[in-house]
């Protein structure tokens, strides 16, 4: 028995349950998805077809549309959520401890709601009829009515707005905690130098929050790539003329409605590679040795 195993054997034993779950429910399915992506897999089996599924995807206009929609959704939603979370966390920071806790809880609370219920509420808000909440509100200032989810031109905008207008509670809490730990002496030094609140925020707070920003950008990007229930509920799974179809929506229908598990796995692999590529870029561009 190797010395390492003799010394740390019991440690491995403690890790084993979690590691087993990880292997069975995460690692193996990912490996299986890679294997299936190279097969013409259906529920009863399949044959190895090499990269044919990927060639099919390259030729498929619906997949290209889903890819474009997913990227657009991700870029807009992640950028908006990061900015919103940062701004809201910065705004509640100067408040007293009790108020901070109250607002953190307030912004976090929507996260405990069912995503389906939230999507149903947004479906009602963006109802294309004049009685839809968004149309009613805009009508008071003489705008609209808009078709929102009833139109292929506006449906994706409505879905994106529904995500952007939901303050990201998790981000607010994380940023808020990170801001609390920033060294006060830097702000005191800036005060001595006569810096205004915006300069302090822009020159001190934002740069020092880079590690938190990196974490949130990566997490939000992965979550945005996986957008599903919002599209499914708000626009009946793709909207008029497939205007809101996303990759995960297409994976779902390809696998579970059309029975093409191989092709769906190829889509999942593409999504996985996209997420990895974007995460690498994000790590490289946002990585910095922030010390304080």
């Amino acid at each position: 028995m190797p010395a390492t195993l003799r010394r740390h054997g019991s440690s491995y034993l403690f890790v084993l349950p979690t590691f087993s779950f990880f292997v069975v429910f995460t690692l193996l399915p990912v490996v299986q998805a890679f294997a299936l992506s190279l097969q013409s897999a259906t529920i009863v089996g399949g044959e190895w077809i090499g990269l044919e599924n990927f060639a099919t995807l390259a030729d498929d206009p619906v997949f290209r549309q889903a890819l474009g929609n997913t990227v657009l959704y991700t870029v807009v939603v992640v950028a908006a959520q990061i900015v919103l979370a940062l701004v809201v966390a910065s705004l509640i920071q100067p408040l007293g401890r009790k108020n901070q806790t109250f607002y953190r809880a307030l912004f976090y609370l929507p996260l405990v709601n069912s995503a389906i219920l939230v999507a149903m509420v947004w479906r009602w808000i963006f109802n294309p009829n004049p009685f839809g909440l968004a149309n009613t509100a805009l009508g008071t200032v003489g705008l609209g009515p808009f078709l929102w989810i009833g139109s292929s031109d506006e449906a994706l905008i409505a879905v994106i707005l529904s995500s952007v207008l939901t303050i990201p509670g998790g981000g607010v809490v994380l940023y808020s905690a990170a801001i609390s730990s920033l060294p006060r002496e830097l702000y005191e030094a800036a005060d001595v130098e006569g810096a205004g609140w915006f300069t302090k925020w822009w020159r001190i707070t934002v740069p020092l929050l880079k590690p938190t920003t990196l974490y949130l950008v990566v997490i939000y990007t992965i979550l945005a790539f996986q957008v599903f229930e919002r599209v499914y509920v708000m626009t009946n799974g793709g909207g008029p003329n497939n205007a809101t179809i996303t990759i995960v929506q297409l994976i779902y229908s390809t696998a579970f409605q059309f029975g093409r598990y191989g092709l769906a796995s190829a889509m999942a692999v593409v999504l996985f590679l996209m997420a990895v590529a974007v995460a690498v870029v994000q790590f490289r561009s946002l990585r910095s040795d922030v010390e304080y």
Partner: protein
Amino acid sequence: MERRSGTTISRRRFLQSVAAIGVASACAPSGAPAGAGPAASPGGSAAAAKPVSIEWWRRNYTPGSQNAETLTSDGAVKAFRERNPNVTLSIQGGPFGPETDQKFDIAILQQKAGPDVFHTTGGDVLKYAAAGQLSEAPLTDAERRDFNPSALQATTYKGKVVAYPLWIVPWFEYINLDLFKERGVTPPKDGNWTYEEFLDAAKKLTFKRADGKQVYGFAHANDEFAFMLVDGGRPYDKDVKSWTFNSADAVSGLEKWVALAREKVMPPDFLTLNPNDAQARFISGDVAILQRPSAMINVLNADKKFEYTKNWEIANFPKGKGEQTAWGGVGFIAVRDQQDADKKAAAHQFAKYLTGPEIGPDLKKMAPPVEYWLAPAARVSAAGIYGEYHPAKAKVAKMSSFTYVLPNVRTFSEIDQKHLRPARDAALEGKKTPKQALDEVATAAQRLLDEANK
């Protein structure tokens, strides 16, 4: 601990033995050996005499609940048991939706196990038949003639009837008589109208009330292609070999549908309107004519203030250039092929009972009576009793005779969702002409049809 003398067995050996027995049991054929003979006839004595237990998988069955599928299923089992006391039946339920479809697929296609008899719809029948998992229905010539031909065709695979057509679910127009009266529009005589009369009515019934509330002449839930049929357009040719939903008749049908959007007689969310919302708007008087299936009769009957012939009525699809057509679905009862001949025979016996003329009267005799036929039966000899429950149902039962039942093509959901529906939306939004939209679908649809026919 005292150890017994004689043969001892270690824990490892014990576990190995258990595993071996498990594998052997899983791999061993169940019941009778392969080729134990064809299924006995439905009234067959082989199954009648010997005790046999079978499992029925039924979507939307929830033990103890009061939903229609549960009540009728429990009633059906009870009535069948009275006629065939040797057959024990258990029901396994599951909601309508992909998770239940998966359960069926995994059991039937992967494990080659699961239900002895089951409810199924659409392309699933052919999927299971293609995998060799369905037992041919032993129908007599008289029985074949008794079934609705298009329903029987929808369940025929390579010349064999692989499931029993249960019922046809026709779609038609529900009309709000109060709104017709308010706008001075005459309801269609005997429920028949031309497309032009229908469009004219829908236009007159689209209006804004003094309080600003908008009423729309017509609405449908976003889940059918009825208008594309009214001029004679059909998705496939007679042999289901060629995609024909870009024919001149299909294009002119879609043009009629597009005209409804252009005239703004439909609510602005008609492309995403779901069935429940559509029904709610009809009941609340926001929509004057609603296209929905026969099941909505029970929904309307549940509202005592909304009376048939006083507040609402049923009319046919507006007639175009083609024959009078209704769009509709069909439900089936299938029997899984298996080596246990007794189970298979009992399953056929039960399937034939579920789709036959005896079950309706049997359930009506129960206390309280159970209404078995939730939609018009797919065979003539069982048709009458559906209409006995309500005058609206009597009217609907006649419509099933000209209902177009979509032939089963296992790739249709892919054709529909990925190609046909987006093209239809583009035409309805005015982004493409109907011809352009339908022509663009044709190549992909034909490829998927060819794949299904392989």
